[in-house]
C-alpha cells in the first residue's frame, strides 16, 4: 500500500519527465530518427529559454509574473554587444550582462514589491520600455559600437576575442554543447537554491500565503524584489549566451514573445502560476519539451498557416497529460 502510494506520488510530482519522454518519442518518430547532435541541439536550443525560465519560475513561485523578460533580453544583449565591442573583453561583457540584467530586474522588482503595482501591468510597462530603449539606442549610438550594422547590434568580428566568444556559444565539449552544460549547471544551482536553502523556502512561503509568511518574519516585499532581481540576472546570463550563439542582437525581434515561451516552459514544468507549488527541475524539462514541440512542427512539414494550431493543440494535450494523469491514477488506486 505504502509502496504504491509512493509510486503515484513520484508520478504526480515528476510527471513533467514522463511528458518530456512522450514528446521526445513523438519527435523521433516524426523526424525519422534522431542523431546525437540532433539530440544535443535540444539542449542548445533550450539554453536561452531555459535560463530565462528559471527566473520566470522563481517569480511564478511567489505568485507574480514577468512579461518583460523578452524585451530585457533584447536590451541587455544589445548593450552587452556594445560593451564587447568597446572592451574586447569577455569577462567584462559577462559581468556587464549579468549586472545590467539584475538592474532591469530590480526596476521590475521595485515596482511590484514596493510600488505595489500588479506584476502583470508593471512588467507590461517595462516590456514596452526596455524594447523601446533597445531600439532607440541602436539608432542613436555611434555605428562603430554596434558593429557597423544599421538596425542590429553586431559583435565586431575585428575584435580579437570574437572567435573565442562565438566558439563558446556554438562549441562543444566532447559531444555536449557548452551552452547545454551551462543550462545544466543553472538547473543544479536553482534546484539547490529552492530546496536546500532558507531563502528558497521563503520564496515558496510568500507564494503560498503571503500574509502568513509575513507573520513568520519574512520580509515579503524584499523576497518579491529579490526574485525579480535574480530573474533579471538570469536574463542577463541568457543575453550573454544569446550573443555568444548569434554574434548579434536585433532589438526588434530578439526575445519577442519570449515571456510566453518562458511561461509555457514553467507551466509545462509543473509550476503553478498562482504561486507556492512546483519544482525547479521541472523547468529544465518544461523548456526542453517546449523546444521539442517546435521541432516536431518543423518535422511535420504541415501547411505553415496551420502550424500554430498544431502547436496549441500539442500544448493542451501535454498539459492535460500532466495535470490529469496523476489525478486519474489516484482515482484508480482508490478503487
Amino acid at each position, binding site marked *: 500500500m505504502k509502496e504504491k502510494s509512493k509510486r503515484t506520488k513520484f508520478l504526480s510530482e515528476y510527471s513533467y519527465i514522463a511528458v518530456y519522454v512522450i514528446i521526445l518519442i513523438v519527435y523521433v518518430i516524426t523526424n525519422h530518427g534522431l542523431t546525437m547532435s*540532433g539530440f544535443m541541439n535540444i539542449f542548445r536550443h533550450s539554453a536561452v529559454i531555459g535560463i530565462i525560465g528559471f527566473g520566470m519560475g522563481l517569480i511564478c513561485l511567489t505568485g507574480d509574473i514577468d512579461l518583460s523578460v523578452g524585451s530585457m533580453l533584447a536590451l541587455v544583449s544589445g548593450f552587452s554587444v556594445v560593451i564587447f565591442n568597446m572592451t574586447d573583453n569577455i569577462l567584462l561583457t559577462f559581468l556587464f550582462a549579468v549586472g545590467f540584467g539584475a538592474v532591469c530586474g530590480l526596476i521590475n522588482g521595485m515596482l511590484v514589491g514596493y510600488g505595489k503595482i500588479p506584476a502583470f501591468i508593471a512588467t507590461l510597462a517595462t516590456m514596452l520600455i526596455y524594447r523601446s530603449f533597445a*531600439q532607440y539606442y541602436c539608432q542613436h549610438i555611434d555605428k562603430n559600437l554596434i558593429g557597423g550594422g*544599421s538596425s542590429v547590434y553586431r559583435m565586431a568580428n575585428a575584435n580579437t576575442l570574437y572567435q573565442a566568444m562565438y566558439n563558446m556559444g*556554438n562549441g562543444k565539449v566532447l559531444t555536449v554543447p557548452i551552452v547545454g552544460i551551462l543550462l545544466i549547471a543553472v538547473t543544479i544551482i536553482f534546484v539547490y537554491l529552492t530546496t536546500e536553502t532558507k531563502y528558497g523556502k521563503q520564496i515558496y512561503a510568500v507564494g503560498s500565503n503571503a500574509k502568513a509568511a509575513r507573520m513568520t518574519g519574512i520580509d515579503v516585499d524584499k523576497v518579491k524584489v529579490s526574485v525579480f532581481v535574480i530573474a533579471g540576472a538570469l536574463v542577463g546570463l541568457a543575453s550573454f549566451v544569446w550573443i555568444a550563439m548569434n554574434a548579434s542582437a*536585433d532589438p*526588434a525581434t530578439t526575445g*519577442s514573445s519570449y515571456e510566453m515561451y518562458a511561461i509555457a516552459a514553467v507551466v509545462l514544468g509543473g509550476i503553478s502560476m498562482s504561486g507556492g507549488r512546483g519544482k525547479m527541475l521541472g523547468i529544465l524539462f518544461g523548456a526542453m519539451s517546449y523546444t521539442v514541440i517546435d*521541432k516536431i512542427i518543423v518535422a511535420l512539414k504541415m501547411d*505553415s498557416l496551420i502550424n500554430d494550431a498544431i502547436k496549441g493543440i500539442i500544448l493542451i494535450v501535454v498539459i492535460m497529460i500532466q495535470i490529469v494523469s496523476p489525478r486519474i491514477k489516484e482515482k484508480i488506486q482508490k478503487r
Partner: protein
Amino acid sequence: ATESASTSQAATEKQNTGESENGDSTHIYVLTAPEDHGWTGSVATFAKEKIEEVNAAGTYTSELITSADASEQIRNIEDILSKGEKNIAIVIQPIDDTVQSAIQQIVDAEIPYVAFDRIIDGVASSAVSNVKGDNEGIGVAAAAYFVSCGMQPGDEVYVYEGDTSSVTTLRDQGFKEYLLGNAEFEDATIEDSLKWTEEQVESAITYSGAMNWSRSDTKTAFESLMSDAGNADTKWFYAEDDELAMGIIEALNGGGIDETTKEAFLANQPVISGCGGLDEFYGMLRGENYTELTAQFGGLVSVTYSPSMIQTAIQDMVDYLDGKTVPQDHVIECENVTSENVTEYEGF
C-alpha cells in the same frame, strides 16, 4: 467608390492651387508600420531621413507617425481628420487591408494621399500615387533565379517565411505563379519545359511558418530541419528576407548540425535566396565574409526590396504638391542582386 474617387481628385487639385495662393505650407503626415523587424525598421529610418530633408527645404512640413497595428493606424488617421486641419497631405504605408475604411475617410475629406508598399484595391484609384515594391515580384524573382540555376519541376524547395501576414502570402504566391508560368520575370515567363504542375507546386514546396523575421529563429529552425539527415537533399532554400537567409548561413557556420549532414548538404551545392538588401548579405556576395561557405553554394541571391522606397513615396507627394505630374502606378521592380552585380547596389 469610384465616383467619389474622381470627385476627390478634382477637389484635391483645387486645394492644391488654393495652397499656392494663400502660401500656407502643407503638412505631410507620414504613417508607417511598426518598427518591429529589420525591414520595417529601416522604412521608418529612411522616412525620418526624408522628413528631415523636407522640413529643411522649408516649403512643406512633415512628421512621422508609426502605429503598432492596423487599428491603431486607423485611429491615428481618424484623429488627424478630426482636427479638421486645412492643407494637409498623407503618405501612408497601410498595415493591412482593414485600413481601407480609414483611407476612404481621407479620400472623403479630400486630402491627397500617397499609398506605399501595400496597395489596397478598393481605394487605389483615388491615390495621388501608389508606390509599391512588388511583394509578389520577390517570389517571382527568386523562382526565376532558382530556375536559372537549374531547378527542375518537382525539386524539393524549402521556404522560410517571415510571418503569416499577407506580405508573406504574396511572396509565396509570386514564387508559385512563376513556376506555373503565370508570372513574368524581366518580361519572360518560365520555359514550357521547366514549367511546374499544380500538383508539383503543392507537394514539393514546404513552408516554414512564422520565423518572426528573426535570424536566430531561422537558425534554430534550420538546425532542427537538418537533424533529419533526409532533409540534407533539399537544394533550394527560398528565404523571404535577408535576415532569414542569414539565419541559414549562421546555422551552417555554427556547431549545431552534424558534420556528415552538413557535408551532404553542401555537396548538393545548395542555392539560397534572400530579399531586402541587408548589407551583411551583400558583403557575402561581394566575397567579404563567409567566403569558405559561400564558395560551396550553387548560388546566392538577394532580391531587391529596398526600404528606401518610402523616400520615393514622400518625394511623389512633394512633387504632387509642387504641381508636377506623378504617375499613379509607381511600381518599383524587383531585381536580383548576385555576386556579379552587387557592386551596383547599396545595402542598408
